[in-house]
């Protein structure tokens, strides 16, 4: 009896047929169970993310002729992109704006995250909620609110007028790059604070005690222990702000004016009323590549910096 089952198993035809065979395979192979569990997500992301982006790349190689697509493969859209000055210029400006936003957001968020992680003793949760609460209001309305602050009759202008510092409301504070940067830095603050806070909170407090014990003062301890250990959070925060903001088209449209236009606006109009989808796809593909390149440069820089300090 025992021998029989052994032989059957060796022959590759388990007793009980296919169902039993599948059951045995599942018991035997962990990876089979694991992949079954991730398969819904995997299939979803392949079908609804990876494949569409592939299609987008394909689309960028077509051209628009009237209402129809011309399906001959060509790099015409890419030639247009680099042929006209406006496209590279706007893309470069978008990357600069997003980089500036990411830098400012992280820089402003770090002391706050540090404060909550190290100085708030009992009500950390309250602080975290206080910080996230404003982000539960509509993104659009938050962006719009900056119009109210920076606008012609906005908070800043009425304040300054009331104080008698200016006669006429200032016009230059809205509809430009600065307004875009301030608005984005505000809108994405939580995405910077939370990862940095988490990485600071994780730091074993005895390491800081050890640094003090080994003779480092508070400043050097921060530079040599706390800051390096919180770098994963800083990097995550930078990327979480930088990459998504490059594609934002709402903020520039609401507060950017003509000088604050970003690449997202060009893509959006190509897919909207401008209706040149292949061109829009080409802009999107180039933007993706450039953003990826920028991220690589950033990560490479961080790595180099680490080596330099170590």
């Amino acid at each position, binding site marked *: *009896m*025992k021998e029989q*089952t*052994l032989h059957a*198993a060796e022959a590759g035809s*388990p007793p009980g047929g296919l169902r*039993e065979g599948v*059951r*045995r395979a599942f*018991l*035997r*192979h*962990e990876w089979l169970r694991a992949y079954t569990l991730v398969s819904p997500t995997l299939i979803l992301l392949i079908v609804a993310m990876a494949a569409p982006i592939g299609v987008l790349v394909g689309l960028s190689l077509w051209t628009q002729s009237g209402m129809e697509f011309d399906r001959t493969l060509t790099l015409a859209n890419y030639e247009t992109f680099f042929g006209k000055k406006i496209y590279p210029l706007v893309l470069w400006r978008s990357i600069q704006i997003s980089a500036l936003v990411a830098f400012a957001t992280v820089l402003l968020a770090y002391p706050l995250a540090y404060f909550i992680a190290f100085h708030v003793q009992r009500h950390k949760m309250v602080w975290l909620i206080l910080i996230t609460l404003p982000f539960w209001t509509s993104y659009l309305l938050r962006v719009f609110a900056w119009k109210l602050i920076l606008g012609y009759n906005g908070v800043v202008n009425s304040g300054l007028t009331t104080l008698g510092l200016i006669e006429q409301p200032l016009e230059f504070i809205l509809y430009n790059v600065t307004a875009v940067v301030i608005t984005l830095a505000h809108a994405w603050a939580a995405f910077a604070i939370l990862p940095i806070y988490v990485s600071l909170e994780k730091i074993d407090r005895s390491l800081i005690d050890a640094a003090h014990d080994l003779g480092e003062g508070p400043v050097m301890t921060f530079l040599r222990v706390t800051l390096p250990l919180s770098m994963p959070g800083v990097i995550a925060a930078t990327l979480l702000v930088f990459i998504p903001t490059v594609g934002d088209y709402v903020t520039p449209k609401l507060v950017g004016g003509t000088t604050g236009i970003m690449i997202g606006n060009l893509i959006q109009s190509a897919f909207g009323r401008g209706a040149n989808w292949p061109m829009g796809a080409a802009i999107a593909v180039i933007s993706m590549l450039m953003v990826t390149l920028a991220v690589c440069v950033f990560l490479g820089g961080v790595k180099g910096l680490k080596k330099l300090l170590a």
Partner: protein
Amino acid sequence: MPDEAFISILDVSKHFGPVKAVDRVSINIAQGEFFALLGPSGCGKTTLLRMLAGFEAPTLGEIYIDDQPTASMPPYQRPVNMVFQNYAIFPHLNVYQNIAFGLRKEKLSRSDLDARVNEALALIKLEGYGTRGANELSGGQRQRVALARALIKRPKVLLLDEPLGALDKKLREQMQIELRQLQKSVGITFVFVTHDQEEALTMSDRIAVMSEGHVLEIGSPEGLYERPRTRFVADFIGTMNFFEGRVRAREGGKIAVDAERVGEVQVPADDYDFNAGDTVVVALRPENIRMRPGRPDLTANMAHGTMSNAAYLGDRAHIYVQTEGSEQPILVAMQNLDGAASSATHGERSVALQWSEQAVLLLRPE
């Protein structure tokens, strides 16, 4: 396969990528046996236990429990239960609910369930603790709850993964005896994983010593302690002095060995098949060496040296004796009979060592 084999592990291997955590292991365990898997961490003993429980599938080979092949048996269908290393008490359930967890399928009436759980609580001497939360238990109590939770299922085999590892020394020694008594009274086969050789010696009927995925030896505690067949086992179980040597002659029912540090060693020849010229390892337990002051003439099975160091352990003393021309001392254990150990550690520094032929073990070099 012997008839009494209740658990048969047949040529079982488990590979994790390139690592062979368990490599071609075969063990038979009889019904009602208290069986220990002993070895240092990373030797594969826990992986083997988890294969018995069904949490890992063997890469090669087959495991039979009570004559049933287990390859297509998931953990929840196996007639085995496990006491986990950290006890795995369900943190969201109280003691009663933890113990009753596995009885859901038996669809007992409320009163039957109460009776079973109370019986189990009595067995582990935790009557009245049913409503305690999982987080209100001490380490020892958690261990008992884990035990009751497994035993209430009336398994054919109980698997225990370092069940005493998390307890302090006193409690551990007490639980060793209790576990042993419990196993005798319920009559269930226990398979027990430990890295603590003393624990394995105290509790088990038989021990399998494992190293790097292999089973080196299987035997009774006495057999493994007194007649180990490999240097690893001799070293891992108890303490042992080793001396490299070469067989000079085999004559007159004796084997004569020239060994480093201790000179000529004579052993009864019946037990070994070594011949003249073979290299061997001479093994000597510290407690089998007698020590006295002075510097007599040497015959076989004698050595002399100077005491270099002594560790006083209360009931006995460990004395390190340095022989001429060698860095490595010989360890001698001395019972502290009437303060003998403490006076010896303060006595003469030049000493003679002597042992009987029967105390000497010859092992194959590895």
